[in-house]
């Protein structure tokens, strides 16, 4: 049975939800009015205020029964529009605020006026605030059409960030991103039109009580899901992600990778768990997770073959997006009904820890790029001595992401693994473990190059301000200690799970991915290691040489497959196929 509809009245503290949208948007408008000279002052005022609002929501939420509601103009839905925050929204609001704050500190030295191209700093600060406003709207919007508008605002703010430096290559990446995202949002809008036609409302709470397994609803669900997948860049709809995320300036990449893809993912979670709880069925959920598994395989293998560090991290984002989708089938019980919220908690936690860790990693790579003047993996030798803090931030972010206790990723993995055992879907447990190993593989690969000694001293071409490295480091540490936070008041996670993160069996859980990851890094990376001439390495190669050649051939095959899938027409056909398969599996299940 569904819980009764939450009371449609404005709760105490509901105005905070309005403020969380109004403050960043006001910042954008004010920056336009005051012009380029004051844009930094505006941003440095808005960012702390926004952070305070997010934490006020976090504090207030448990005191008001886990729900904050604000009715705009006091009109109740279906006529009016409601803003609602629950535990998921509060967690995402806080994550966004923390990441934006860290990126703002990182970018403060980068985007001084007159430091780069004249307009770029102005545009960056305005777009940063615009993305924040759009994301906050997504997290607290109470109806599907507001979500559509917020989703479009998010895209419009994210696309110019990609082409901030104005090179032809990044303009092309931005245009590809925009056009594919528009295709996705039109599909979403089409689903919205169908739902309105069937039930006469778009309010999430009202819809969740009215929907039944009608064929129209299922087609709408398939269309909306496909559109959101295109915006989230789930494999095989990822054609825009690697060039867009790798070409943007470091601070922009951090925002794009950490937060922007989470916006559409969050709407997808709302759709599957709140608008039509469990209605799409187990078969469609299995399809989503299968695409996620494909993303892990393609993203990780191609990441290990990249020569440039930023592209490696962009492809790792692709793999991590796939990881997020593994929660969908685990939330369904054996009867095909939506049973467990624990998988949802695991997925959301994974999203939060990826947001913090990946932003930290992109910022650390930005520092390394600024210091060395390049980001080729084979040219990283000795960088740990020249830029110790940047490498430390990268390492801690990577360690948090690969699921070392007590990071958020390890807690999320623990929750999801418990669910695989409970629902008997052992194959997703294998994918979860493999995902952890692949993450370890590319982190180990980069660190083994960065920590290797160098013959000649490294000459730094750019300054390395301390504040940039500290911002990345703090964010990475946040991700590493996420597992210790009291999640149970916001997410449906058991409170005693965090205490299981330590102990003897935790050690075995740590060793398995680390050893597997190191093996994968040796087998799949084509780059010569600086220690490659040592005797131990040669002895190792004599043993695993044939296996490694086979793996490298497999890797180049995957890379070629990825290139084909990133063609526009191939991606378009995959989009149609995914929507057809989703619709077919949903219709078959009901």
């Amino acid at each position, binding site marked *: 049975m569904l819980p009764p509809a939450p009371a449609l009245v404005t709760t105490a503290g509901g105005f905070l939800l309005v403020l969380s949208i109004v403050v960043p948007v006001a910042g954008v408008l004010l920056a336009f009015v005051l012009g380029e000279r004051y844009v930094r002052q505006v941003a440095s005022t808005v960012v702390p205020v926004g952070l305070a609002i997010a934490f006020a929501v976090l504090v207030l939420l448990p005191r008001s029964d886990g729900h904050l509601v604000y009715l705009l103009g006091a009109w109740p839905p279906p006529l009016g529009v409601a803003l609602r925050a629950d535990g998921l929204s509060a967690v995402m609001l806080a994550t966004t605020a923390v990441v934006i704050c860290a990126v703002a500190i990182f970018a403060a030295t980068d985007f001084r006026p007159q430091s780069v191209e004249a307009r770029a700093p102005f545009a960056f600060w305005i777009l940063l605030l615009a993305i924040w406003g759009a994301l906050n709207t997504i997290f607290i919007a109470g109806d599907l059409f507001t979500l*559509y508008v917020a989703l479009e605002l998010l895209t*419009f703010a994210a696309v110019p960030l990609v082409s901030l430096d104005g090179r032809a290559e990044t303009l*092309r990446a931005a245009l*590809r991103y925009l*056009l594919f995202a528009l295709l996705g949002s039109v599909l979403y*809008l089409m689903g919205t039109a169908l739902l*309105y036609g069937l039930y*006469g409302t778009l309010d999430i709470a009202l819809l969740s009580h009215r929907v039944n397994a009608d064929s129209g609803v299922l087609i709408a669900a398939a269309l909306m899901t496909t559109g959101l997948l295109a915006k989230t860049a789930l494999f095989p709809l990822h054609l825009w992600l690697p*060039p867009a995320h790798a070409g943007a300036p470091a601070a922009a990449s951090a925002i794009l990778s950490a937060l922007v893809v989470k916006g559409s993912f969050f709407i997808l979670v709302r759709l599957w768990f709140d608008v039509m709880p469990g209605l799409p069925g187990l078969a469609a959920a299995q399809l989503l997770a299968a695409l996620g598994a494909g993303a892990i395989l393609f993203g990780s293998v191609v990441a290990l073959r990249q020569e440039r560090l930023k592209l490696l991290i962009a492809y790792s984002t692709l793999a991590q997006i796939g990881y997020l989708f593994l929660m969908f089938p685990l939330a369904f019980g054996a009867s095909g009904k939506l049973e467990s919220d624990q998988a949802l908690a695991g997925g959301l936690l994974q999203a939060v820890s990826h947001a913090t860790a990946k932003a930290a990693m992109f910022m650390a790579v930005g520092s390394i790029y600024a210091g060395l003047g390049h980001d080729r993996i084979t040219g990283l030798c000795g960088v740990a001595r020249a830029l110790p803090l940047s490498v430390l931030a990268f390492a801690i972010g990577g360690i948090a992401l690969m699921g070392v206790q007590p990071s958020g990723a390890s807690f999320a993995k623990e929750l999801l693994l418990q669910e695989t055992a409970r629902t008997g879907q052992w194959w997703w447990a294998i994918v979860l473990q493999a995902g952890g190993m692949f993450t370890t593989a590319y982190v180990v690969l980069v660190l083994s190059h960065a920590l290797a000694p160098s013959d000649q001293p490294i000459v730094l071409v750019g300054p390395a301000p301390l504040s940039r490295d500290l911002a990345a480091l703090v964010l990475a540490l946040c991700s590493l200690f996420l597992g210790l936070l009291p999640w149970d008041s916001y997410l449906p996670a058991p409170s005693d799970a965090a205490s299981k993160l330590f102990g003897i069996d935790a050690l075995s859980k740590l060793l398995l991915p680390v050893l597997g990851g190191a093996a994968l890094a040796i087998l799949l990376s084509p780059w010569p290691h600086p220690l490659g001439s040592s005797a131990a390495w040669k002895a190792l190669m004599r043993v695993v040489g044939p296996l490694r050649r086979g793996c490298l051939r497999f890797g180049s095959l995957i890379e070629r497959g990825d290139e084909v899938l990133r063609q526009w027409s191939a991606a*378009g056909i995959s989009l149609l196929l995914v929507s057809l398969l989703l619709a077919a599996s949903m219709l078959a299940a009901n």
Partner: protein
Amino acid sequence: MSAVTVFGLCAAAAVGLGLYGLIANPQPLRKIIAFNLLGSGVFLMFGIVGRRGAAAGFGNDPVPQALVITGVVVAFSATALAIALLLRLFQIAGSTTLNSRAAASARSDPSGH
């Protein structure tokens, strides 16, 4: 055939043509136009949905009309942003292809196609 069915079929045709153009056409400008056609199909669908309210004594349900107006504004801004990016790309690279490999060979071609 009732008016609603005719409009429904028109919406379906516009959506289908737009989808085809967006996926199959290599030129970005045609993709942008195809996106607008696709959007028009969806807006027409909202218009049909608005006929629901007719039974309640209204001539039309006003909510879908409000949604369509918002949708048109969003589609307009999307088109403007895409055209701006496209113009800038043409100014800098001299061609408007989205394929980076074709762009590398197009640079030697002065006609810029």
